[in-house]
């Protein structure tokens, strides 16, 4: 029997067991909505699972039963003994079908038209009493309305009855049975037998209470501690007769520990095993082309956690396929490839497991959700008008909320998302939703590692020890005054120069409000941590060893403290808190993981992992409003003594690295003082450097850049919200031109000199910032630039008969992305041979390969101005040579 089926049988038998109990309780408390909801969900899950295992009989019965329950839940029907009996008899039918299924791996012949007709009649309110078969059951309040259970149901189907039941392996039952349906004589007996509780499959697996495992784990931890103490004692004694025995004890203990740990950890791929089949069958049923991609299937997580998220995951993947992905025709009309993609990814991130379910479908329909919210009385129109799209999306997590126009057998009953949320929150996780119309939706589930073994660095600050998960530690730096690595302060904020980059620092003592007697002017250590793409340093007093620790969740009282992801017991028996680098990053105001600020990013991005973040240097100059330049453009940050500023030809210059470097103030009216130190941003290009005079360097932030307001003011590109403040984006090109009129012109001494005709460049990028940044740059370099905001617009130009010498395209764009765009251009048409350069903020080797495959001639990182210009001329030269 295949794993899928055997797991289904185990699960369904469990579910049915619960249902029997719950239904009887429901009969006694007909007005308990929680009970009803629970019953409904179990039946819904059974139905859903049958659906994709191709078990039409089971599905039909469960569907009819669910229908009745749905009406009861919606208040259209009341709970009566008749209703309960009917549902119980459908459960008995399900059990009977399961028994046959287990014995023969196939549903029995025949149909359940009689039962379904009754259920449907009842659902339509046309049935008040039970006729025929089930009538005998009606007066009985007990959950066993069917006739006497006949023992050994499996025996009927298997030719070797005595052994088949005893053997725990289901395959043993199945093997002797030919593929033919069960003997006709057996079928009626199986029909009569409704109560098959002792499933052989269920017996082949032992379900162990997690508490028991938890206890075992605790005992093992104790054992390890005791072992460590013994080893310590042994080390103090030479030639002890205990030596060998203790060695053995030590080995066994380690193995035991490993074994117990293993019982709880499983790769998430186990929970995904069913999904490809689910997607395939859904695709056929819904007549859609759907591709399922799974990344990180080997990410391990706690068995208990996995059990709890398995159903939610199934629901969500099903939802993505059913509601998210459009039909092939709709997709083609929207300019997307025919085949939709549902992507599942899992990865560990600082003490959490992140699971993403993304589809490239049509996104959530805001209008439909609004309508439904008003219908269900969840909000008024006025309230909705005030809500952001993000807030409106949250309605889909409410019970009974479905916007699917018709209830299909796949989904659309509104049972899915509230179950998902409940299950995830039950284990202390969060679920986030991002959606963009026409581009798809992404669900991000973040689950704390309730029990996982991680390698952690033990550090000390203010006499307290803390553990930092090794996974987020990039390196350790020892900092001492007077040495090359020393902590400097920008207006009190500590920073460290690390390999020509400025690393923001945060003191653990300040962060945790520890009283600190340690003198920071002496040596200290900096733990360089990385969260996502953001690096920062944590200042600590001392660094001890790394230690393998078991992450235990903190007490509920302390869960609000975001700085800790858990706690653990060290080898010496002391309790120690585990720092959460995510929480620390969030507290330093740099990262908005899981916070509301994320809402701003949602409209810009479809997939969380592809958030187009830009590092920006924030500074003040002239007025009070913060200003920013892309960090990648800045070569160095310097502070010069104002006394060193000299004047040449009336303009300020400074001797810098053996040359004169012109200084340009942001504010032309700025009067440079003669005292103190002057911060400057140094821009370099080949031999030349230019210093931009600023008042104060404030910070480095990493954020999604949205230029919200354009600017007519020379020297400014526009404004954006950065770190919560309106910030002016400085047009570096403008100031570079002030220092050297021919800054950009100097490029033309290269390959482009002999080109008589102006070359035309088509720039495709959805970000207005980049269009604004690159257009002047390319224009000055001697190209004629047409900039468009999407691949579709670019293709419009193709339609309109425009021709270009080279195309520069962004990769991550809404709608058609760069790869798809390139494929389209390369496909046919006049532009087939036009060289293309891909522009991306992150270029992994895979991206490079993929880019070449679809026809990009070159692939370069955004902001790398030199590379872009070099690549342009090189690509064009190559093209000419080929043509010649």
């Amino acid at each position: 029997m295949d794993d899928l089926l055997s797991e289904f049988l185990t699960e369904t038998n469990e579910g049915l067991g619960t249902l029997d109990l719950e239904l009887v309780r429901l009969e006694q408390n007909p007005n308990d909505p929680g009970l009803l909801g629970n019953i409904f969900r179990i039946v819904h899950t059974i139905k859903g699972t049958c659906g994709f295992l191709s078990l039409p009989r089971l599905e039909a019965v469960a569907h009819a039963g669910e229908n009745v329950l749905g009406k009861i839940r919606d208040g259209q029907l009341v709970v009566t003994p008749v209703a309960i009996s009917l549902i119980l008899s459908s459960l008995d039918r399900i059990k009977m079908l399961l028994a046959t299924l287990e014995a023969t791996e196939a549903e029995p012949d025949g149909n359940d038209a009689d039962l379904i007709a009754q259920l449907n009649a009842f659902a339509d309110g046309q049935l008040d009493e039970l006729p025929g078969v089930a009538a005998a059951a009606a007066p009985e309040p007990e959950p066993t309305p069917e006739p006497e259970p006949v023992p050994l149901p499996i025996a009927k189907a298997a030719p070797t009855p005595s052994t088949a039941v005893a053997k725990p392996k289901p395959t043993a039952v199945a093997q002797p049975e030919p593929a033919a349906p069960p003997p006709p004589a057996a079928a009626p007996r199986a029909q009569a037998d409704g109560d098959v509780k002792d499933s052989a499959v269920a017996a082949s697996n032992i379900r162990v209470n997690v508490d028991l495992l938890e206890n075992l784990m605790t005992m093992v931890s104790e054992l390890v501690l005791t072992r460590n103490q013994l080893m310590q004692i042994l080390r103090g004694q030479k030639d002890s007769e205990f030596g060998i025995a203790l060695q053995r004890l030590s080995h066994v203990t380690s193995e035991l520990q490993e074994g117990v740990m293993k019982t709880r950890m499983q790769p998430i791929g186990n929970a995904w095993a069913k999904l490809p089949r689910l997607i395939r069958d859904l695709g056929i049923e819904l007549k859609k082309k759907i591709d399922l991609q799974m990344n990180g299937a080997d990410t391990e997580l706690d068995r208990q956690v996995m059990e709890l998220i398995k159903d939610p995951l199934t629901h969500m993947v099903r939802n993505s396929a059913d509601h998210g992905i459009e039909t092939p025709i709709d997709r083609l009309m929207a300019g997307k490839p025919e085949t939709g993609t549902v992507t599942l990814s899992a990865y560990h991130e600082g003490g959490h497991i992140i699971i993403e379910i993304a589809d490239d479908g049509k996104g959530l329909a805001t209008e439909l959700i609004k309508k439904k919210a008003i219908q269900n009385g969840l909000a008024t129109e006025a309230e909705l008008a005030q809500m952001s799209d993000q807030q409106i999306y949250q309605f889909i997590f409410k019970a009974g909320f479905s916007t699917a126009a018709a209830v299909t057998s796949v989904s659309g009953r509104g049972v899915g998302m509230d179950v998902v949320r409940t299950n995830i929150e039950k284990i202390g996780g969060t679920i986030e939703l991002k959606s963009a119309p026409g581009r798809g939706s992404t669900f991000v589930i973040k689950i704390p590692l309730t029990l996982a073994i991680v390698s952690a660095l033990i550090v000390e600050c203010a006499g307290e020890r803390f553990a930092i998960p090794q996974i987020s530690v990039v390196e350790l730096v020892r900092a001492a005054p007077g040495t090359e690595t020393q902590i400097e302060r920008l207006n009190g904020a500590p920073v460290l120069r690390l390999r020509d980059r400025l690393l923001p620092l945060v003191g653990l003592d300040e962060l945790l409000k520890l009283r600190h007697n340690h003198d920071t002017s002496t040596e200290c250590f900096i733990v360089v941590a990385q969260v996502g793409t953001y690096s920062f340093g944590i200042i600590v007093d001392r660094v001890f060893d790394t230690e393998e620790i078991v992450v235990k969740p903190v007490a509920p009282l302390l869960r609000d403290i975001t700085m800790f992801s858990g706690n653990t017991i060290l080898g010496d028996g002391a309790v120690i808190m585990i720092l959460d680098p995510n929480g620390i990053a969030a507290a330093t105001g740099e990262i908005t993981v899981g916070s509301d600020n994320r809402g701003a990013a949602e409209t810009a991005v479809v997939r969380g992992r592809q958030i187009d973040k830009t590092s920006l240097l924030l500074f003040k100059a002239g007025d009070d409003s913060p200003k920013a330049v892309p960090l990648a453009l800045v070569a160095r940050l310097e502070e010069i003594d104002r006394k060193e500023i000299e004047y040449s030809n009336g303009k300020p210059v400074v001797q810098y690295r053996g040359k004169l470097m012109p200084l340009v103030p942001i504010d032309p009216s700025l009067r440079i003082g003669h005292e103190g130190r002057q911060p400057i941003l140094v821009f370099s290009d080949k031999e030349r450097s230019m210093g931009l005079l600023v008042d104060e360097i404030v910070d480095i932030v990493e954020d999604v850049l949205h230029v919200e307001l354009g600017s007519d003011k020379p020297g400014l590109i526009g404004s954006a919200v950065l770190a919560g403040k309106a910030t002016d984006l400085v047009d570096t090109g403008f100031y570079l031109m002030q220092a050297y009129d021919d800054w950009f012109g100097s490029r033309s001494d290269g390959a482009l000199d002999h080109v008589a005709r102006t070359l035309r460049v088509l720039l495709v990028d959805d970000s207005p910032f980049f269009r604004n940044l690159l257009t002047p740059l390319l224009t000055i370099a001697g190209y004629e630039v047409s900039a468009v905001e999407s691949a579709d617009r670019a293709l419009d130009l193709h339609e309109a008969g425009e021709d270009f010498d080279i195309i520069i395209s962004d990769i991550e764009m809404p709608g058609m992305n760069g790869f798809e765009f390139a494929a389209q251009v390369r496909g046919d048409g006049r532009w087939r041979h036009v060289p293309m350069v891909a522009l991306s903020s992150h270029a992994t080797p895979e991206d490079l390969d993929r880019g070449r495959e679809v026809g990009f001639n070159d692939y370069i990182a955004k902001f790398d101005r030199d590379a872009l210009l070099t690549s342009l001329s090189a690509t064009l030269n190559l093209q000419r040579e080929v043509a010649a």
Partner: protein
Amino acid sequence: MSIVPAGSTPRSVALGDAASHDYVSIFIAGQMFGIPVLQVQDVLGPQRITRIPLAPPEVAGSLNLRGRIVTAIDVRTRLKLPKNTDGKESMSVVVDQGGEQYSLLVDNVGEVLSLTSGTYERNPATLDPAWRDVSNGIHRLDGNLLIILDVARLLDFATSADAA
């Protein structure tokens, strides 16, 4: 998140109940308190306690109870009493609340007392509100008064602090 489970100890003790109740007696700043004996899992001497930065002031830290991490609650702080100054280290009474274990730091632990409803009184109206919040009533003993500690409410300072 509240740490009070649905089925916590009854808020009031039925007066007609003749059966006796057993309490572990504890002492804080000279006052005798009683914790229902069934809720007490362990009584420990002074323990090594790890401070938890940023935690509420009532949380003294965490300690290792045979491989389990237990949150230590400073009952003095919870009852708005000053810190212990006599230099004696606190005793720990480990209680189970909603599946989580907590260690209550108290000055001293006495014997187990079996008390009947005959000596029971409701909270006097003049009792300090902070104390009344955690008290399930009083037992009149010879030469002493015992306050019945409602452990669930004693540990509920997180939510009451949130509300404030």
